[in-house]
């Protein structure tokens, strides 16, 4: 990230100097962090609300029910894990957390799933097919209700901030399908 910042800043100064936009670049360097604070404040309410809601879903056992409902689908994606209860459990908890938009819960659950998969592979340094699929799944968005996007749209005057929902689901599902297919078919596969 440090390198990214360095490269971005250097490039901005060069391009800015060439195009005569150095004053704007300088203003951004001074003032952009204020915008970061504004953005955090804008998101504060919806982040609190949905974190609270997901905590209720977890405590009441709703998360577990969703998890059980997912397992047939996950067995299709990970056929070799059919009898690996621990790995399957961690994977379905991770997917459930992703669906509900519990980003902070999804990552630790995902890491424990990875640990399980790593143990099964004899702690290999090279990713197994299951790991590739699982990581690719996590790089696609599974979130059912994109609350951050919705709250920013609402903030800027959208009448129905979730009118994009069917389109978001369509994009998530199909891009996930593309990712998993690419992971599974061994397209680009290097050993």
């Amino acid at each position, binding site marked *: 990230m440090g390198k*990214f*910042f360095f490269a971005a*800043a250097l490039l*901005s100064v*060069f*391009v800015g100097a060439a*195009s005569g*936009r150095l004053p704007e*670049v300088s203003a*951004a*360097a001074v*003032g952009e*962090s204020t*915008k*970061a604070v504004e953005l955090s404040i804008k*998101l*504060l309410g919806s*982040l609190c*609300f949905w*974190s*609270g*809601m*997901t905590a*209720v*879903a977890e405590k009441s056992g*709703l998360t577990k029910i969703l998890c059980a409902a997912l397992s047939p689908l996950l067995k299709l994606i990970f056929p070799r894990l059919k009898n690996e209860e621990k790995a399957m459990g961690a994977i379905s908890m991770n997917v459930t957390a992703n669906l509900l938009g519990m980003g902070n819960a999804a990552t630790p659950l995902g890491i424990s799933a*990875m640990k399980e*998969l*790593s143990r099964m592979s004899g702690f290999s*340094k*090279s*990713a197994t097919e299951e790991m590739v699929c699982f990581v690719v799944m*996590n*790089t696609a*968005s599974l979130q059912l209700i*994109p609350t951050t*996007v919705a709250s920013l*749209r609402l*903030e*800027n*005057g959208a*009448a*129905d901030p*979730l*009118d*994009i929902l069917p*389109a978001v689901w369509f*994009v*998530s599902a*199909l*891009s996930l399908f*593309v*990712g*998993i297919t*690419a*992971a599974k078919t061994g*397209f*680009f*596969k*290097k050993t």
Partner: protein
Amino acid sequence: MSVWIVPAAVIFIVGFGIFKKTDVFAVFTEGAKQGLKTAVSVLPALCFLMTAVGMLRESGAVEIFSEMVFPLFEKLGFPKEVLPLALLRPFSGSGALGYYEELCRELEIGSFAEKVASVLMGGSETTFYTVAVYYGAVGIKNGRNTVPAALMADIAAAILSVFAVNLFIPQ
């Protein structure tokens, strides 16, 4: 239909909690506190990355780069304003979020370009961060086809957003 989904989800979650005799209010406030912590914990990264992205944006470098890549996307009807977001999305979650917020303010809400940006933002994730965290955690050195597969999914998401907005959202 979409106006029903969130209220229904909220009622269902709370109703199920009451049915299962959960102390809904106490659990909610405890969870909401976690959300507060998350918001505070992402702020430093946002400050760092938004400054870098902001400088790039103001210098005009992003426009120049978008201009170079745009012909590839033009035929698909991809809106030009949204292209930097699509290029940023796999690399930086906070950077993309900052850029998206900017777009929300500048574009008319409900316009084609704004909808494509929102669908793209809602339908994709920060690829490289996820790969680094998950493989880093278990010491994988060779991710094999993970990154190409994940990037194919990202490209698919960008192309599909245009298609999905045309298909599902009445203009």
